[in-house]
C-alpha cells in the first residue's frame, strides 16, 4: 500500500485506519505520522495547559526576556505577556481581544483579533509533504528550564526552508525551546523558557492587566487589523516552492491603509509565508530584502501594486514568491 492509495481511500482519512496503516506500511509514512502527531501535540498543549514561565527570545545578537502567564478556563484562553527588559510593554489577551499597554508612552492599543485557535490538523497529504521536504527525526533527550525534554529536528531537504530544532516537555508536549537554523547550522532565532511551571493553579488576577481601568491621561487606540475576510483575491503565486500550499486567502483592513490589503498565506506544514498585495499608485516605494529575527521580508513593486512576502524562511524563498506574484 502506498501513500497515494491511502489518500485516495476515504477510509484513509480516519485516524484509526491511518495509524494502523502507518504501523504496518512504509517507514516514510510512519515518520510523517510521527512528525504531524508531534506538531499537533505541541500546539494543543500550548492552548490547553495552564502555565507560567519566563521566555528568552534571541535574534540577530539581541536578547529579550518576557514573562508569560497562560490560563485555559473551560476552553476560554487568557494570556498575559510582560517584557522584562527594554521599554515596558504588557500584552493582555482576553479570548478574542488583545490589549497592548505601553506605560512609558501612556498608550494602550486595543485590537479585535480572531485567533485561529485550532492548529490545522494536517491532512495525510500535508503530512507526506512535511516529510518530503524535511528530514524529521527524534534527537537526544535533555533538560530545558529544569524539565525533562525530548528534542526533535526538522532538517530541510532543499534551500527553500530553514532547519528547525524543538525541545518538548516530555510530560505535556509543551514546547520548551525552539531554534531556527540557517544552511550553515547557525541559529537565526531562538526562544526558550528559562523557567516554567505547568499545571499549577492560575488565578484570573494573574492574567489581568496591571491597569484595571485605563488612566484618563492615556491615549487609547482602539483600531487595528480585524480578521481576514476570506475570498478570492484574483492573485496567484506562479513559482511557489515545492511543498508550500495555500492555507488562507482574503482581504484585510489594516491601519493607515485606505483600501483592504490582499493577504495570502502559504504553508509547508511547519512554517508559513504571507503575501500582502496593496494598491499604492505609481509613486515609487522602497523595495528589496530585509530581515527581522528569523523572518525574511521581500518587497517588490510593479504597476500600481506593492507586493510584500514575509515568513520564517530563507531570503531566496520570499524573493521567489514575491517575484512570481501575478494576476490570475
Amino acid at each position, binding site marked *: 500500500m502506498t501513500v497515494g492509495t491511502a489518500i485516495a481511500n476515504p477510509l484513509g482519512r480516519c485516524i484509526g485506519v491511518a495509524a494502523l496503516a502507518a504501523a504496518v506500511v512504509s517507514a516514510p509514512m510512519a515518520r510523517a505520522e510521527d512528525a504531524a502527531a508531534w506538531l499537533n501535540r505541541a500546539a494543543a498543549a500550548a492552548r490547553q495547559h495552564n502555565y507560567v514561565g519566563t521566555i528568552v527570545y534571541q535574534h540577530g545578537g539581541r536578547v529579550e526576556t518576557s514573562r508569560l502567564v497562560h490560563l485555559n478556563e473551560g476552553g476560554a484562553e487568557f494570556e498575559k505577556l510582560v517584557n522584562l527588559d527594554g521599554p515596558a510593554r504588557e500584552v493582555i489577551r482576553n479570548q478574542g481581544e488583545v490589549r497592548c499597554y505601553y506605560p512609558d508612552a501612556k498608550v494602550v492599543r486595543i485590537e479585535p483579533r480572531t485567533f485561529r485557535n485550532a492548529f490545522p490538523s494536517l491532512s495525510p497529504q500535508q503530512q507526506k509533504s512535511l516529510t518530503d521536504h524535511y528530514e524529521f527525526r527524534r534527537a537526544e533527550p535533555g533538560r530545558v528550564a529544569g524539565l525533562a525534554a525530548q528534542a526533535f529536528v526538522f532538517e530541510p531537504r532543499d534551500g527553500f526552508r530553514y532547519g528547525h530544532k524543538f525541545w518538548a516537555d516530555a510530560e505535556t508536549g509543551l*514546547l520548551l525551546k*525552539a531554534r531556527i537554523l540557517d544552511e550553515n547550522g547557525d541559529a537565526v532565532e531562538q526562544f526558550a523558557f528559562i523557567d516554567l511551571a505547568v499545571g499549577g493553579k492560575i488565578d484570573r488576577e494573574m492574567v489581568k492587566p496591571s491597569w484595571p481601568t485605563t488612566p484618563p491621561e492615556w491615549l487609547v487606540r482602539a483600531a487595528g487589523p480585524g480578521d*481576514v475576510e476570506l475570498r478570492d483575491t484574483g492573485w496567484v503565486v506562479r513559482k511557489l516552492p515545492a511543498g508550500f500550499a495555500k492555507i488562507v486567502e482574503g482581504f484585510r483592513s489594516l491601519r*493607515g491603509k485606505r483600501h483592504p490589503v490582499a493577504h495570502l498565506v502559504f504553508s509547508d506544514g511547519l512554517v*508559513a509565508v*504571507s503575501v500582502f498585495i496593496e494598491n499604492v499608485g505609481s*509613486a515609487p516605494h522602497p523595495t*528589496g530584502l530585509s*530581515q527581522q529575527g528569523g523572518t525574511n521580508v521581500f518587497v517588490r513593486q510593479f504597476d500600481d501594486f506593492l507586493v510584500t512576502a514575509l*515568513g520564517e524562511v530563507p531570503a531566496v524563498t520570499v524573493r521567489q514568491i514575491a517575484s512570481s506574484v501575478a494576476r490570475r
Partner: protein
Amino acid sequence: MGEDISRLMDGELDDEQLDVVWAQLKRPEGVATWAGYHVIGDTLRGTQRLSPGFSERFAARLAAEPTVLAPRAKPARSLSLAWSVAATVAAVAVVGWAAVGTLDPQANAMAKAREAAVARAAQIKPRSVPVDYLLAHQESSPTTQIQGVGPYLRPATATTFEARP
C-alpha cells in the same frame, strides 16, 4: 508633524499622506524630527551609539569616497543590525548636510552630492515592514501556534514604535 514622520518610518503612509510628509522633510525642523526619531529608536533597540564627532568624520570620508551604487552582500545574520546602523548613518548624514548647507556655495555643492548619495542609500535600504503585517502573518503561521507564545513575542523589535501615539 511628528506623528506623520513616525508613521512614515513605520511605512504606514499612503500616497497622498506621503507627499505631505516629503514636504515636511524638506524643512530643517522636519529633518531634525526624523533624525531624532531614529536616535530614539536606536536607543530603544540598544543599537550601538556613535562616537563623538562621528558625523564630521563621516561627512569628510563620504565626500572623499567614490559613490558605490551596488549594495555589498552581507552575511544574513547581521542584516538586521546593519540596516539599523545604515538608518542611523543616513539620518546623521542628513543632519550634517542640513548644518553644512548654510555655510558657503562650495559646501553646498558638496552637500548636494552627499544628499544624492544618501538618497541612493535610502533606495537600496528596504522599507521597514509595518507591524500590522508581521502580526497578521504570525496569526496565521503554524510556527506561532506550535510555540504557543502568541504572535506578540516574535516581532518584539518592531513593537517599540507601536507605542507612539
